[in-house]
Structure formats: structure tokens, C-alpha cells
């Protein structure tokens, strides 16, 4: 298997450990990730909040480049994944939209056909690679580790037409957790918004939503939360200290990217997975795993 890898802006900076662990995990699974040449920002929700056509044109440039390689795109950041997928679906289902998007690309030397699909690594693991095969690759089952699968918003919302998983009660991450030998902690808020998008514009609202998630996780007695989103990770991990200060509570809840968890089970060294880059220390957790 081979994919055009679209890291997105966060994975080059604040989510460096997500980038490192994604590359390591797929390398260990003999899946080639070829970084998309000269990729640009997907525009995120800022593009759709400023200009609708721009919100399709920015992903379209990336998709056109991946078509030159004839490779499906893999995007670990759910926001990038949504924007790229939305552009792909818009031009795939609507020939007029394809013409319109191609008009925006005129003069760049790029042209879009709508021929390559866009995938998220969680579902590449679950569907394309397969969990049976993943299980065979596990060398260090993460027994007795109690893990919360946190999906966040846009990995599955709005629902994709290809129905990857339930938008309201997804199980993809749950199944990955059990495949690597750990235990799933039931979590009512598995798809509830962390408020991360409002981090700069409305700090109080963001802290409230993030606090609710962290508190529920703490009360459930989990060892860690796993996420697949850089923005959720930023809110739950890097801003955990702000939540603790605002609510005068000690939380101390490690938050790992799902690829970091999978990487540990595959026997990849914690350092190579960027586990020293998380804000809330994963030391205790690693010790309990005798790593």
C-alpha cells in the first residue's frame, strides 16, 4: 500500500509527535507514505468562513498534485481530512463544481479530475490495512492499560457518504485499542466538541468544554485518552494546565495520539514516537508498561 501523505500545517509544528508517530507506525506496517510535493494549507475552517470557493480551491490544488502521482491522499489532521474530502466529493458528484474549481486553478498548470480519494489514518488502519493484520504485528500488548477513545468532531462529522463509521457512536478507535491489547474505557463524550476551535477567540468557552471532557475522563479512572486530532490534542494536553488553573483541580491525564499508542504496541521506541513531546508526562504510563 502506498499513499500521498498530507501532513498539514499542525503536524509540522504543534503536532510534531503526531507526524513522527504516524510515519513510524506506517513504516512498521510496510505502508509507504510519500509526502505530497509542495502541499499547501487546506484553508481549515478559516477558508469556509471567508470564502466558499477558496475553501474548495485550496484543497483542490493539493488533490491535483496527488492526481499527478495517482495516489490516494492520507491526511491525519481531521480538519485537513474534512476539507480535502469535501473538495473531492464536491467535484466528484457535481460536474459543474468540477469546472468551477478548475477555473480557480487556471494558469497554475494544475487541473483536477476528481480521481483520487482522501482517507484518514484511523480508517486506513481499520479498513485498508485491517485489524487482524495489525494484531499480528503487535509485539508488546498493552495489557491492563485503560484507554479512552476520543474522536472529536470532524473526523466523522458531517457523516461521509462512504459511511466509514457511525458519526454518533463510532467504534474505529475502540477497535484499535482492543487490537493492541488495551482496555476501552466507556466514554459518553467520545464525539463531543472540545472547543479547541475557540482557543484564541473565546478562551472561557474552550476551557469549559475541555474541562468537561477531562473531568469525565478522570472520573472514569482512565490511564490516558487517545485522540486523532491536533486541535483536540492541543486543548486536552497543552492546555490541560490552563484547565487545572481555571478550575482549581489536579487532572494529570496523559493524552496520546492514537498512533503513539499503536506504535508502543508495535515495539517502537517511545522517543521515536515523540512521547517526550507531550505536555502531560507519559512517564508513569510507560513505567506501568515496563518501557
Amino acid at each position, binding site marked *: 500500500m502506498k499513499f500521498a501523505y498530507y501532513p498539514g500545517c499542525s503536524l509540522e509544528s504543534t503536532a510534531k509527535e503526531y507526524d513522527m508517530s504516524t510515519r513510524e507506525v506506517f513504516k512498521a506496517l510496510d505502508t509507504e507514505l510519500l509526502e505530497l510535493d509542495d502541499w*499547501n494549507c487546506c484553508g481549515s475552517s478559516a477558508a469556509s468562513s471567508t470564502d466558499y470557493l*477558496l475553501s474548495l480551491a485550496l484543497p483542490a490544488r493539493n488533490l491535483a498534485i496527488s492526481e499527478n502521482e495517482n495516489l490516494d491522499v492520507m491526511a491525519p489532521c481531521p480538519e485537513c481530512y474534512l476539507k480535502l474530502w469535501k473538495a473531492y466529493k464536491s467535484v466528484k458528484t457535481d460536474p459543474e463544481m468540477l469546472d468551477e474549481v478548475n477555473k480557480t486553478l487556471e494558469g*497554475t498548470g494544475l487541473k483536477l479530475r476528481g480521481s483520487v480519494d482522501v482517507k484518514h489514518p484511523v480508517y486506513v488502519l481499520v479498513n485498508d490495512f485491517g485489524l487482524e493484520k495489525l494484531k499480528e504485528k503487535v509485539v508488546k500488548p498493552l495489557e491492563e492499560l485503560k484507554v479512552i477513545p476520543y474522536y472529536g468532531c470532524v473526523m466523522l*462529522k458531517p457523516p461521509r457518504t462512504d459511511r466509514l463509521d457511525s458519526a454518533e457512536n463510532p467504534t474505529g478507535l475502540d477497535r484499535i485499542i482492543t487490537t493492541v491489547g488495551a482496555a476501552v474505557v466507556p466514554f459518553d463524550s467520545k464525539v463531543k*466538541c472540545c*472547543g479547541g476551535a*475557540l482557543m484564541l*477567540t473565546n478562551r472561557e468557552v474552550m476551557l469549559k468544554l475541555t474541562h468537561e471532557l477531562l473531568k469525565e475522563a478522570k472520573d472514569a479512572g482512565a490511564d490516558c485518552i487517545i485522540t486523532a486530532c491536533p486541535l483536540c490534542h492541543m486543548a486536552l494536553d497543552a492546555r490541560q494546565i490552563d484547565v487545572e488553573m481555571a478550575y482549581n483541580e489536579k487532572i494529570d491525564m496523559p493524552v496520546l495520539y492514537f498512533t503513539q499508542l499503536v506504535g508502543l504496541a508495535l515495539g517502537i521506541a517511545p522517543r521515536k514516537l515523540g512521547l517526550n513531546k507531550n505536555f502531560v508526562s507519559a512517564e508513569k504510563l510507560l513505567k506501568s508498561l515496563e518501557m
Partner: protein
Amino acid sequence: MELETIRLKDCDQNFIKDVIEAGGKKAHLCFQCGTCTAGCPTVYAMDYTPRQIMRMVNLGMKEQVLKSGTIWLCASCFTCQTRCPRGVEITSVMGALKSIAIKEGIEVADKKGPVFHNSFIEVAMDHGRLSEPILLLKFVGRTEGSIPGAVKSLIKEASLGMELAKRGKMAFLPHKIRKPKQLKIICENIRKMEEEVQ
């Protein structure tokens, strides 16, 4: 209870069409069930609920809608859109409303929302990729009225910035793409296409 009178002749009958064209698909299909409001994680802080906004959009209450704090409190989580029994793309409606408010330069009480989205796109278009430090500088410079205020905000964010840098998670210089000119061409094409429509 005193009921407010809405004068339809003061409303903008084209507004719903503009919202749909700006990406707010199926906005006209709303039948006011309130499922959007029931699931909204930030509704408690809003001046109008999402259901109210949908009704106001359909009635053409453009000014009130574009000036409301609601559209900037929307975290784009897509819960409303996922659950809407009419298939209204409510989150996209909120996005469309934000874009119309920005394009028309609507003055809002809290300008952090429009400033954030505008600054984000400026940085992404200049370099081809987002640079958090540049975004932060632009954002703080434009939202803080005074220099001491700006300095205070920056110091507050600086500690997080230093912690990120310590972990190799903050690039102080922007990552630039090799062909930023292609983005300029795309922007220019869009500008021309949108001029033609008007």
C-alpha cells in the same frame, strides 16, 4: 409576555439566496424543530440559538444575524448538521454567514472571531502554510486596543510558545511552499469569478 413584531418589509428577501450561494446548502429547508440547538455545545453562551438564527436567515433578518455573537461562537463541530432531519447544512450556513459578515465588514461587539479567520487566511495565503507565531502576532495586534494590552496577551501566550519550542513543536520561521505564486493566481481567479457573478 410581550411578542416582538418583525416587519417583513424591513427584511432582505435576497438574504437566504445569498447564504445558500455562499455555501449554506439547503438553508431554506429548515422546519424549526430545534434539534440543532439541542445538540450545540456552545449554545449556552450565544445571544440567539442556532434554531433562531435559521429562522432569521429565512426571514431575511440580515443585519441582526450578521451582528449576532452566535455565528462567531460556532466552533464548526458539525453536530447540528449531522443531526438535522431536513439535511440542512447548518454548520456550512454558519460558515457562509461568517464569510458574508467578513466581506461586508460588519462591525461586531467582539471582533476576535472575524479577525482570527481573516488573519489565518492571510498568513496561509502569504506563505502557503500556516505559521502560528505570525498568526498570533497579527491576531493580538488587531484585537488588543492598546500596546500594554497587546504585550500582556503576548506574554500570556509566550509561555505556551516557549514550552512548545522546548519540545521542538514551534517553528519561529514560517514554512514556505515553493510555488506561492500559484496561490496568488488562485486568489485572483476567484476574485474575477466572483466579480462576474455580481
